[in-house]
């Protein structure tokens, strides 16, 4: 099971998910496509340039693989201070 976390505006769309990833999900891009089909409004938010995705608490601009044991977090624009 993969754990999907949603922060900021993403938290308006879904609570934390524990999901068995389908075989079609192998990386961040395919995970986002999968979630876009499952969660209304997700695709628009995921497409924003200020959206960040972490896999096991690491954010990279590059594509990375995702697996069922991973924790993936979707984050809308950050705003501290």
């Amino acid at each position, binding site marked *: 099971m993969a754990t999907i976390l949603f*922060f900021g505006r993403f*938290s308006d769309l879904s609570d934390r998910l524990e999901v068995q990833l389908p075989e079609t999900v192998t990386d961040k891009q395919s995970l986002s496509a999968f979630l876009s089909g499952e969660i209304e409004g997700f695709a628009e938010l995921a497409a924003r340039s200020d959206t960040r995705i972490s896999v096991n*608490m690491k954010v990279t601009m590059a594509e990375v693989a995702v697996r069922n044991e991973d924790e993936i977090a979707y984050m809308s624009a*950050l*705003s*501290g201070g």
Partner: protein
Amino acid sequence: MIRVCDSPIAPEAELAAFRAALPNAGAIASFIGCVRDDGQTQALTLSHYPGFTETVIAGFVEQVSERWNLLGTLILHRVGKMSLGEPIVLVATASAHRREAFEACDYLMDRLKCDAPFWKQETVAGETRWIEPHPQDHSDLNRWSS
């Protein structure tokens, strides 16, 4: 020291303890960010990604320590619901001389504004809405790239 907390920050006591622990510091700069009363906002609610947020901030401290010669760094950040006037963040830096402490404190606040995993909602007229960084926040951060 880095601390993300859901209880109120007492900046004066925190700064006194920070200063007491650094008797050799010739300069201590600090910044306190508070919930601003703009006549509309009733409350501010911040959330974070436990574990990840602290790790990201620790990275800022590493970077600031490479760039400036610091004797100590303090970052306290609130999460949860805050009322008008309540402190949201306290940043303090200590160095031998003032310029390094000023600049490092300024840099850390710019990083916290744009790059720290916090999310902010304000309550206005009973409704909540997300707050995102302003273009000025990014301009401020970009000053350090040159």
